[in-house]
């Protein structure tokens, strides 16, 4: 693992996060933190016809957690809820373009966890063990 993870693109998303802030009337919101470092991510979603119509995130924490959450919000606009349920670690790694390594992977996955918590919350379904163990 190296500071290659701090590629321009990640620092750019950290400095200028896309989709940062609040939605006027979200259909669902979820929030979670990484107990190891205290990083926090909140996501707010607007859902239409089973797809993500709009999305915002807020949070505090390291560059990896904030940039990956921001990248995720851009990537999932228009995606179906089933598609989001099927997303895993490889999807986030592809977005980041680099594997942050074992000590930092949880930072990268916090956004995905909160996104999935939002979807399960919206559907009124129990959160799977797999989602709980992302971070």
């Amino acid at each position, binding site marked *: *693992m*190296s*500071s290659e*993870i*701090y590629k*321009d693109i990640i*620092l750019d998303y950290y400095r200028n996060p896309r989709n940062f802030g609040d939605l006027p009337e979200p259909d669902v919101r979820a929030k979670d933190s990484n107990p*190891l*470092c*205290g*990083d926090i991510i909140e996501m707010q979603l607007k859902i239409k016809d089973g797809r993500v119509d709009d999305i915002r995130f807020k949070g*505090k*924490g*390291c*560059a*990896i957690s904030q940039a990956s959450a921001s990248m995720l919000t851009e990537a999932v606009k228009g995606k179906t809820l089933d598609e989001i349920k099927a997303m895993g670690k490889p999807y986030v790694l592809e977005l980041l373009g680099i594997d*942050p390594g074992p*000590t*930092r992977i949880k*930072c990268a996955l916090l956004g995905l966890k909160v996104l999935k918590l939002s979807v399960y919350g919206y559907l009124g379904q129990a959160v799977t063990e797999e989602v709980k163990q992302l971070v």
Partner: protein
Amino acid sequence: MVEKVTTINVSKLREDFPVLKRLVNGKPLIYFDNAATSQKPESVIETTDRYYREYNANIHRGIHKLAEEATLAHEEAREKIAKFIHAKHTEEIIFTRNATEAINLVAYSWGRANVGKGDKIVLTIMEHHSNTVPWQLLAQEKGATVEYVKIDNDGMLRLEEVHEIIDEKTKIVCVTQASNVLGTINPVKEIGKVAHRYGAMFLVDAAQSVPHMRVDVRDIDCDFFAFSGHKMLGPTGIGVLHGKSEHLRRMPPFLGGGEMIREVHTTGSLWKDIPYKYEAGTPNIVGAIGLGAAVDYLSKIGMENVYEQEREIAKYAIGRMSEVKDLTLYGPRDIAQRVGVLSFNLGDIHAHDLASILDEDGIAIRSGHHCAQPLMEFLNVPAMSRASFYIYNTREEVDVFINALEKARKLFAR
């Protein structure tokens, strides 16, 4: 002013630590995470290895040769540790897993027998979770309250608060001798006097002090004194509780089981005398013996020299760090008031990002809340990076560290 010249030959001493020869990410390891755990010298590694190769046996009850040798080595380690912290009696040294377990022993054994509803437990805001959570659990169970002595802007305890908070209701005062975040050395002897004036017990968390300075439990006059072996060149899984024998004799046992009993009947049991009363089950024999070897190593150098050497490095590091733009250093400015634990933040770079960037250059630092969340909350800082030194660290390593900080600053300034 004449500066005392350290007598430690650091480059020679470094040869005693095999891990320091290691490359990390192609760079020589720079180990600045000593407040978390220290590296181990060859003598400690050899001593533990020899136990398993030559005289591995269970202690105390064996009649055979190996059991005799193992028992002797285990009890010799206890004597070495007693001398090292200037205990009055060897039997005041109780082996535990770590400082956390030592503090829990006091909270469970002494605490449950002596703390009641409306009583007060006094801590400081800079305590490690190991010296906070056991007391919160005790207070919850007994309906007691926990109060915290705060710090000033320089990271020093507010001594006037010590006098305000400790009162007749106070049953125990628990204070760290050196902060694992701020590096602050607390005036434990003075605080202990205040506790005793009100008839309260006084516990010192010495996890960050025993490895780095000369300590004297009789001079401090504390009732309990807890520390870990692995932060002072010893193995993990071994820690020490020192308690005044008059308390230890009166307190009920902590864990029940083998090794700690004199007689067991269906109607009840009789305990062994101290220290064995508090050492149920087969103990960490190799850990204790290894800690004995660590104490030998440190004693040979001399704790005054250890302290001077680290102070020298910390002073140099503080000077160099003050040249780094946007760097915030926490804790006392006065080098005489602190150990070699330097917590800091660099601009708005998150501590975890900084640790990752430094790791690329083979530099090991710690980042996060350092198991001191009440302190982080009090300072309103979510996370800090921490560089902490030991006898084997050098100025050259500090220079590499400073360059890496500059690199990180530039990377994030883009």
